[in-house]
Every structure is written in C-alpha cells, then in structure tokens.
C-alpha cells in the first residue's frame, strides 16, 4: 500500500511533458507515408524547433498535434490530453500559426488580432488590451489602422504571429512563422517568441532556418523523411558533430588522414583545434578558396542526412 502511494507520489512529481509524441505514423490516402514513428517530448516552458527540409514531415506532425489531422498510428499528448480522443480539451490550450497562412486582408491588424481573441472567448476590453500590447511587441503599431491588404508579406505574417501570441495559449504551434520575412522582420518575430517563452509559454516551431533554431530553441528535433534523426539541446547537437571546426574547401580535394564530405562542389573536412593545416595548405596549393568555421547544427544535419538543409525544395 505504502509502495503504491510512493509510486503515485513520484509519478506526480515527475516532470510531465507538455507535448509528448509517441510513435506517430501518418500514411495519406494517396499512399505517401509522411511520418514513420515520430517520438519526442517537449517539457513545459521550452521552445523546441522541429528542423527539417521541406517535405520532411514537420507540417504533418504539427497538424496532427494541433488537432487538424488524424494520425494513422501512435499518439500525441498535449499537457496530458490525447489529441485524438480529447480534441476539444486540447483546443482550449493551444494556438497555431498555420504554414502559408495569412490574416484576412480586408481587416486592419488591430481588427484581426482583436477578432481572433473574441473568437477564443476573451471579453471585449481584455481583447482590445491584448491586441494593442501584442501589436506593439511585434512592432506593428504604425500599421495598426491600415488594412492588411496594404502591408507587405512579412508584416502580414507578423500580424498572424501577434494574434497567436496574444491568445495566451499554453502551447503554441508555429509552422514556419518566418518564411518570407526579411532579416529585420525575422528578428522582430524572434524577440516576440523569446518574450513569450520568458512568460512561460511552451512552443513548437517548425523551421528550415538553422540560425533560427540556434538562436531561439532550447532543443531541436531533426526530422528527415518522416523520421526523427536527432533530439536534444542545441549544445548537444553541436557536440554530436564530434569536431569543433570545419574547413570548407570550394573545390574537389582529398587529404590523407582526413575524412571528406562532398556537397555540390564543396569539400568539407571536420577538424579539432590544431588540426587541418594540411587541408588548408593543399587547398591553397590547388588554388581553391577555403574557409574555417566553428561547427553548427547545420553540420549535424549534414552528418545525419548527407545533405544541406537549404537544398530542400
């Protein structure tokens, strides 16, 4: 009896994943298998980036987790609720920026965010206050009274992000929220996401921008062809490369004692501090340009898939 009580107590104290994906498979009616047993978990208050090329299965997973699509097999739990059996309870707790989504262009940014909050159940005065606050956070105040049709694609995307962040939902799914934004606009979205994270929000962000994942994410999940190839912190990801630096040689080169990786005319050598002199000398002798860089998540992606992420279609 005491043992059972202790077990229950321990279970209660254990860190419960805000989002837990267990062996999720998705086979579409046309026969395409988009997910092949995707498993990972996200702790409460963490920002996790789902990193992968276009078509890797990121959007399919997000659509399943945000109750828009049924999995073929496996489960996703959001704050302990099953997205298949308890969708209405889950929808109270989540908000989502859809991939390639746009706000309604006949409205002003303020009207769009305000109406979204009213639909979610906020009272009028609170919705107005939250809408103003989040438009300010995303630096949209100067455009608040212009119709969305007059705004650039990047500003439109920020309006959508402002609405979802203003929702105060406990778990946010952001499917490629910065695609098509210029670097400044991307940074404004990043700032807003960092602020939401500080406020305790749990976020799942899909992206194929390595710098975005490295700058924002507490953890990354690398998805490739429907499978999770890596799941861990950004630092763990960098360490998993196994070397501190890489030498990129713009030409075809072989150096004895070094393992080379060839990607579209570039030969990459992974080295530690104090290594790689022979590579640089040989590259110079051949007249090839070469660059030494610290290893990053991109190198982990290359190592795991043999491809660069931005080569995706």
């Amino acid at each position, binding site marked *: 009896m005491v043992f059972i009580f202790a077990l229950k107590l321990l279970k209660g104290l254990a860190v419960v994943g805000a989002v837990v994906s267990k062996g999720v498979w998705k086979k579409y009616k046309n026969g395409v298998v988009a997910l092949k047993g995707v498993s990972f978990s996200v702790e409460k208050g963490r920002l996790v980036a789902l990193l992968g090329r276009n078509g890797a299965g990121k959007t399919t997973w997000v659509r399943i987790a945000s*109750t*828009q699509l049924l999995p073929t097999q496996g489960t996703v739990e959001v704050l302990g609720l099953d997205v298949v059996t308890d969708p209405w309870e889950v929808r109270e707790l989540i*908000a*989502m920026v859809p*991939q390639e*989504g*746009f706000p*309604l262009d*006949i409205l002003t940014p303020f009207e769009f965010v305000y109406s979204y909050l009213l639909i979610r159940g906020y009272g009028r005065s609170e919705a107005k206050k939250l809408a103003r606050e989040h438009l300010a956070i995303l630096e949209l105040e100067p455009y608040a009274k212009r119709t969305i049709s007059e705004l650039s694609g990047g500003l439109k995307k920020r309006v959508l992000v402002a609405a*979802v962040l203003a929702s105060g939902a406990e778990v946010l799914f952001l499917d490629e929220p910065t695609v098509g934004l210029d670097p400044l606009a991307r940074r404004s979205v990043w700032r807003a996401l960092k602020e939401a994270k500080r406020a305790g929000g749990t976020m799942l962000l899909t992206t194929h921008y390595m710098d975005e994942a490295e700058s924002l994410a507490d953890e990354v999940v690398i998805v490739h062809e429907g499978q999770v190839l890596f799941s861990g912190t950004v630092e763990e990801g960098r360490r998993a490369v196994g070397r501190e630096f890489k030498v990129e040689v713009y030409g075809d080169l072989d150096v004895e004692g070094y393992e080379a990786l060839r990607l579209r005319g570039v030969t990459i050598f992974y080295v530690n501090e104090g290594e790689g002199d022979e590579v640089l000398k040989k590259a110079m002798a051949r007249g090839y340009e070469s660059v030494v860089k610290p290893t990053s998540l991109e190198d982990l992606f290359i190592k795991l898939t043999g491809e660069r992420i931005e080569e995706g279609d």
Partner: protein
Amino acid sequence: MRKGIRRQAVASLTIAWVNGLVVLKRAPLWVVSYLLMPLALLFFFRIHGNVAMMKMALIGGIIMVATSNGISILGDAAWFRIYVKYQDLLVATPIRPVSYVMGLSLSMFVFASPGLSLFIALASLAGLTTFEFALALAACTIAVWISSSMIGFAISTLFKSLRHVWPMASILSLVLSLLPPIYYPATVLPRGLQWIGALVPTGAAAMILHHVAGLIEVEATALTTSIASLIAYTATLSLLSSLKVRWREE
C-alpha cells in the same frame, strides 16, 4: 474568458462582423454587383409587364438576393480553407464547427441586407403590405438564406483548388434563382405537376410567396409540398453542412 454557448455565439457574431459588416463597409461595390441582375429583371418586367408581373419580379428579386448571397459562402469558405488558412487557424481554438458555419452564413446575410432592404421597400411601395405576406416573406427569406448558404458551404468542402470555386458559385446562383418558378408563375407548369417547382428551396419559397401575395392560385398539394420542402431543406442542409465541415482531416 467566456465559456459555453455564449462564447460560441460571440464567435459566430465576430465572424459575421469581420466577413460581413467590415467587407460591406470597405468593399461596397459587391452590393452593386449582386443587385445588377435582379434590378435589370425588375426593369424589364416593369417595362414589358403588368403590375402582377412587377410584383413577381420584386418577390423574385428578394429570393435572388438571398440566394446569390447565401451561395457566395462557397467562395469565402473555400478561400478561408484553401488559401489564407483561416479555418486552420480557427481549428486550433475552442470554436465549434457549427459556430464557424453559422458565423459565415450570418456574414452572408449581413451582406445581403442592403439588397433585401431595397427590394422589401420597393415591394411595400408596390402594395405588398399585408401582415400575412410580411410573415411569409420573413420566413421564406430566412429559409432561402439558410438553405442556399448551407448548399454553398457543403459544396465548398469538395474543392481542392480555388480555380473551380468562383464559376460554381455563379452557376449555382443562377440555376437556383432562374430555373425554378420564381420569375414565372408555377401555374404555367402542367396541372398535377406544380409540385415540381417545390423541389428546390427557392422554387418552394417563391410558390408560397406568389400564393400569399395573391398572384397565383396554386393547388393545395403544391402549397403543402412547398412548405414541407422548405422546412426539410433548411433542416437537412444545416445538418449536412455541420457534418461536412472538415474540422479534422483523415
């Protein structure tokens, strides 16, 4: 935070506000576009017909305005689902699919209201002012609006590309407003077959209104069929649309 039915009602009204009132205010040209056809028909009936034919054109105008606006939900629902992903945004919220469909449908009614007001005012000037007619007109207009918007919504769920949506809305609108006995009396149909006009909601509504306005004397069977058909269409199509909303794909 609002909960329960109140939250759902506010959600529907909010959608009607953003997709109806705001659009009406910022893009009023749409009102002119949907009024052109019924006004043109009214003009020709006034020039070439008698008072009874003009009254028929006024009733036809009301039905056509309600139908064309109801059917145009097809374009909006498909646009929201396929292009701007507004439906996806709303699926991840507590709004129920029924509230979403009701909100879109209400927005169509908001949009139709200037046209309906114009035709109702003209009908009053033409002498269509009895209490029975007002009652029948209100019931039939609401039934036609609900059934046509539900037909539009249900059909919108079948499309995967927007390219085919726009012509479909025009075709359906004209077929439902011109083919059934709306701009012509059901009495021109062979005796014993007048009930055929009641097979579509717009035809059924027109037959009831023509009869109540004293423009035609339809058979009792045809009148009963019209009333039953209109009620059945409104209820069945509302249910069908609620079931057809792809709130979660398989």
